[in-house]
């Protein structure tokens, strides 16, 4: 079975936790299961990098668990 995840799905999952998030994704491997994900949200202000990434992993938990998302490199920021 071919399992993969789209940019739109990743964005939807992240926005469920962070409604203001600006989400950019880049498919690393052309197989739609290894992504670079960049997330900008006001919610990150005052959070450690560890906790920011924990929040993104929690948002993407379902996709990581079912294997549609194999690996993700996360960058986070707050709006300028």
């Amino acid at each position: 079975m071919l399992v993969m995840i789209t940019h739109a799905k990743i964005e939807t999952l992240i926005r469920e936790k962070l409604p203001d998030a600006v989400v950019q994704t880049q498919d690393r491997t052309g197989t739609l299961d290894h992504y670079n994900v960049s997330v900008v949200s006001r919610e990150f202000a005052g959070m450690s990098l560890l906790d920011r990434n924990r929040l993104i992993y929690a948002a993407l938990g379902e996709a990581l668990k079912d294997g549609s998302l194999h690996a993700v490199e996360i960058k986070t920021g707050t709006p300028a």
Partner: protein
Amino acid sequence: MTPEVKQAIDNDIKTHKILVYGKGTKSMPRCGFTLETIEFFNQFGYPFEVVDALADPAKREGLAEMTDWPTLPKVFIDGKFYGDTDILGPMHESGELKTVLESAFAEAKT
């Protein structure tokens, strides 16, 4: 997590100043991110150990629970959890990582 698993993890992170729980080993990494992490630490010249978490599912599960971090690799420096290169990369750029490593290895000599 069983006390045995906890003991084994505590022992790992006490024994190695820089410890990477990854997929595969230093000589045979089985995941691009584990390889990237090995290359990342190669640049500093400090000794580091890579433990294959795939070889021990109970430990892998225990680590996820203990760190609240679902993915591999997982990096510990001086017994403290630092996530992966998504965290360590920015810490390296800001100079913070250098301080962490220097203090970790300064203690080792005393």
